[in-house]
């Protein structure tokens, strides 16, 4: 009914002068930015999301400094120990330090998620842009995307992993294949909208080259929704990676991925709950943080949405 931003801007009386119009525009822009930042910081969710993601990244980067143990070091004497000052998150069935494994797991999960997000974003924009520019390419590319989208993403990822073999590189490839169709559709849709706008028409009239129009004028205008979507792809890549590893089809075993730790933990769930709880909580928290951050970024970019 009453939206902030829509009514809080006081319009000075209409004036003739161009300078005043320019001033008005600037003050409007400034006001808009103010609203955006206020919206972002006022929304506890997005601040929480940003904090969680930052902390996770820090923990992952600083893992070698923080941890006293090697995540792969075996210590069969101290196996399946509960949490203690020595091992904060206890030890697993081979006596490895769970705290170290969870932190190093953050490295793997975040790296996979980040790579998948960025690659998907880039490929999605590439495909979407060219699809929007060329009818034939559009038909072929979008039919393939439809076909890929018809296969539920987890199952597609599992199939790809079976075919490619369990390996961290293949995890990234599979997840990219799974996420690109959605991103391409989004980028194409946005590009189509931008294409219709008059300034692109006038660009064409001015004789700007096709590639130039695509990358210099259309791409920057579709980037905001793509960034938001990248955040969500990031989050879902972390989930799917963990699920794949949990099923034994993701990052190969000794590596401390969250899914792997959970997989081990499931086998000893009656005796060693900490093997499930800690990596599980880290996964859930990171994903939650990314989702909240994505929502926050969307509100920041488009304060009127919601």
């Amino acid at each position, binding site marked *: *009914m*009453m939206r902030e931003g829509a009514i809080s801007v006081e319009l000075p*009386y209409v004036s003739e002068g161009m300078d005043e119009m320019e001033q008005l525009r600037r003050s409007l822009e400034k006001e808009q930015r103010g609203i955006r930042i206020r919206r972002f910081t006022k929304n506890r969710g997005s601040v929480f999301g940003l904090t969680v993601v930052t902390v996770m990244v820090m923990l992952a980067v600083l893992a070698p400094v923080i941890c006293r143990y090697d995540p792969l070091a075996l210590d069969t004497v101290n196996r399946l120990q509960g949490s203690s000052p020595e091992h904060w998150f206890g030890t697993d069935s081979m006596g490895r330090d769970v705290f170290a494994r969870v932190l190093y797991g953050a490295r793997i999960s975040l790296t996979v998620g980040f790579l998948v997000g960025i690659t998907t974003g880039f490929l999605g924009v590439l495909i979407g842009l060219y699809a929007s520019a060329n009818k034939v390419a559009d038909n072929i590319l979008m039919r393939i995307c439809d076909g890929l989208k018809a296969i539920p993403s987890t199952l597609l990822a599992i199939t790809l992993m079976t075919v490619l073999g369990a390996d961290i590189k293949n995890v990234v490839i599979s997840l990219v294949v799974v996420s690109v169709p959605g991103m391409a559709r989004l980028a194409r849709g946005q590009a189509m909208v931008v294409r219709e706008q008059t300034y692109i028409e006038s660009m064409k009239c001015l004789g700007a080259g096709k590639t130039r129009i695509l990358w210099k004028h259309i791409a920057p205008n579709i980037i905001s929704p793509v960034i938001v979507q990248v955040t969500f792809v990031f989050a879902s890549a972390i989930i799917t990676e963990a699920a794949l590893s949990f099923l034994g089809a993701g990052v190969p075993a000794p590596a401390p991925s969250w899914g792997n730790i959970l997989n081990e933990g499931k086998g000893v769930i009656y005796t060693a709950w900490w093997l499930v709880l800690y990596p599980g909580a880290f996964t859930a928290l990171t994903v939650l943080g990314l989702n909240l951050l994505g929502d926050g970024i969307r509100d920041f970019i488009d304060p009127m949405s919601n």
Partner: protein
Amino acid sequence: MAERILEVDNLCTQFKTERGLLKAIDGVSFEVYRGEMLGIVGESGCGKSVTSQSILRLYDEKNLAVYSGQVRFEGQNLFDLSQKEMQKIRGARISMVFQDALSSLNPVFTVGNQIMEALMIHQNISKKDAREKAVKMLGMVGIPDPEGRFFQYPFELSGGMRQRVMIAVALACRPDILIADEPTTALDVTIQAQIMDLMVEMNRKLDMGVMLITHDLAVVAETCHRVLVMYLGQIVEEGLVEDIFDRPLHPYTKGLIASIPKLDSQKGEKLHQIKGTVPVLGKVPEGCRFAPRCPYAGAECRTKAPELKKVNESQKVRCHLADRRADRG
């Protein structure tokens, strides 16, 4: 004068927003008589629609709106009624027609169904009777082939037809008052005229009070008996159509009338415009609300808020300078 059926007395409606209460209308008082057409005019954002929807208490009272003042319908204050009792008034005694028929008619029900529903809620009649009456209503509002149209969905009708359907829904139970909120704004000019003719015809036929809310003064001049001019949530002038158009007293009313395009005006002659724009709600100027845009405003106008004063038998105005200018004619 005819029977007085609705009295609005010092009505205030405030909205709860993120930044506290916002006064959308501020002390509005007027009456509606049986059989009359009352025009309410003003620029968008002046509180016309809020006034009409407040009368029917359509705003969510838990989360959105706070009402004060009284709306007396046949002597009964509507704000004293429970929601249940209010439902018996809405659609049966006081009806409403909205601006955009396409979005105001439910897209997934047939038009016949939507007219029948109004009948079946308020009148204890069988489905068969309701259907018959609904078809009759469709015919009455001038829809050709009412039996066939009965089974059509709103999106299958033209804009004018949809508006007629909405009028049929509103009039199905023969209300005492019809509130029409910009009923022709979304339509083509020729269709506008047809719909206005229909409104006038219904007003005579059913002997009800019609509140016509519009920003189109020409329509008011042609159809209404009395006029309220609103500005920033207040009534600034009230009077018979002749008063308002022949002897407007408030500078705002004068501005509105001067800005109606005239057929006999010279080509190239600039249309009159009122300086400035309507200030945003919550940033109401001190003193007279119109003062910042008023060409005549003096020192008094900027500090002291004027009252709505009776200047003659039928006319009221909210302006410090009105007396002086009324003398001058």
